[in-house]
């Protein structure tokens, strides 16, 4: 699903964000990208979403070399990827239903299809009864679920969560993980970017540890450096 091949990324001013990153995340995997702030996690995400291009090396998403992707094709790449933001980024003036529908409305999905799809997504994240509520009236956990719902609206093949537990208490973190696992169980490749080691390790999934722009370890907890790679 995602392949990085000798990827280097430098920002202006001799600022190296990624150094020779080489990895492969397979379709249907559930992966944590772990690292302290400044380790290159954000850059890693930006490269996948094609917000940035690597200085050297290649990034493939769903079999497409992103270097070959034209500017106009970027939106279509992003429709295959669902993103859950750390701060959720819900639209406060729209209902829960409309927040989820928004992702479909702005990508030319027909209103019939939206009426069909949104209830399914709301059921999946357990918010059917809150469809008409506005985000500011919801609890943090509920807002989190709306954010996941919106990311799942397109039935993405790849679901990315950027520090999904950064803003919430441990009970809600667990709740979020359950949602992501549920999405993974219905077929989505899930990439969780986080700095929270404990939570990542408790889940028992593959962890890619980034430090100063390099992949330090890659594997499941308890396995050695470089284990379960590829």
């Amino acid at each position, binding site marked *: 699903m995602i392949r990085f091949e000798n990827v280097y990324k430098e920002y202006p001013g001799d600022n190296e964000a990624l150094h020779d990153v080489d990895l492969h995340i397979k379709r249907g995997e559930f992966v944590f990208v772990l690292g302290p702030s400044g380790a290159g996690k954000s850059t890693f995400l930006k490269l996948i*979403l094609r*917000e940035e291009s690597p200085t050297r090396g290649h990034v493939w998403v769903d079999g497409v070399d992103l270097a070959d992707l034209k500017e*106009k094709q970027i*939106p*279509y*790449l*992003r*429709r*295959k*990827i669902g*993103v859950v933001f750390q701060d959720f*980024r819900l*639209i406060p003036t729209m209902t829960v239903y409309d927040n989820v529908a*928004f*992702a479909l*409305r*702005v*990508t*030319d*999905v*027909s*209103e019939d299809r939206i009426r069909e799809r949104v209830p399914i997504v709301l059921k999946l994240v357990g918010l059917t009864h809150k469809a008409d509520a506005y985000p500011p009236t919801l609890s943090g956990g509920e807002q989190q679920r709306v954010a996941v719902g*919106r990311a799942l*609206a*397109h039935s993405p093949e790849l679901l990315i969560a950027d520090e999904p537990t950064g803003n919430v208490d441990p009970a809600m973190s667990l709740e979020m993980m359950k949602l992501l696992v549920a999405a993974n169980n219905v077929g989505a490749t899930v990439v969780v970017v986080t700095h929270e080691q404990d939570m990542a390790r408790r889940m028992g999934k593959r962890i890619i540890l980034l430090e100063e722009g390099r992949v330090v370890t890659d594997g499941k907890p308890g396995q050695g450096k470089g284990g379960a790679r590829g």
Partner: protein
Amino acid sequence: MKWSSFRYLFGQGLHAMRLNRMMTVTSVGVLTVCMVITGCAGLLSANLTSMMEWLGRQNEMVVMLDRSATEEEYLELGEEIRAIPGVSEAAYHTKEEALNELSAEMEGYASLFEDLSGEENPLYARYTVSVSEPEQMEAIGEQISGMPLVEVVRSPQLLVDTFLRLQRTVRAVSWGLVALLGIVSVVVIGNTIRLTVFARRREITIMKYVGATNAFIRLPFFVEGVTVGVLAGLLSSGLVLGAYAALADRAAGMLQGMEFMGPDMVLPLTAVWPLVLGGFLLFGILLGSLGTTLSMRKYLNV
């Protein structure tokens, strides 16, 4: 783009205008003022052009004749005038005819003219001379005024020159205004759109991440910018045409009975309204789109 998507995005644009009410009203107002000023200059310029054309079509000079000459001498002079190349016609009017014409034009003042008939008639016998090409009028006029028995030649030449100078100035000022006020309008619309963009930056970011194309992201802002332009266009058309209707009638009345001028020198409302309305709408749409494009450019690079 699907019809339902278009409707949704269109609605989003109108919704933003309502949320942004104060700014919308302000920019429609500023834009209207700009357009009204431009429109007035444009109409003035168009009328001067029309006056020039009207004068050009007249091609007629009035040759006043020496009072002392006899009828035969006058007729002889007429032959000489007709012999000048470029003269298409020379019609003789006795001073009695001139008097009758004048009293007919000034009916209601008939008593003034009663004592002026016969020997007391102060008017000149005259030839009205038509030329085939208006450009030749000046030269032919000079030639005729050099002939014996000719007291004075009046031609619209001076008027033509005056109008021409005036027209040039007005046209230059108009274009200056169009350029200056155009820039002001684009900046005003651009600022309004920028406010909306700022208010909706969260939505724009989300749109980018869920894979909305730039066309989808831009459309609501275009709807807003162009609607502001169209509203200003309609409003200023109403104002300018209303004022024009009132002024054109008055101006036409003033030109009635003036030498070398006539009420049909002023363009009638029916001739200008489609141009004004069409021009303003086009101008509004153009400025709206331009303002939107310029203010959105940097927000689309995510």
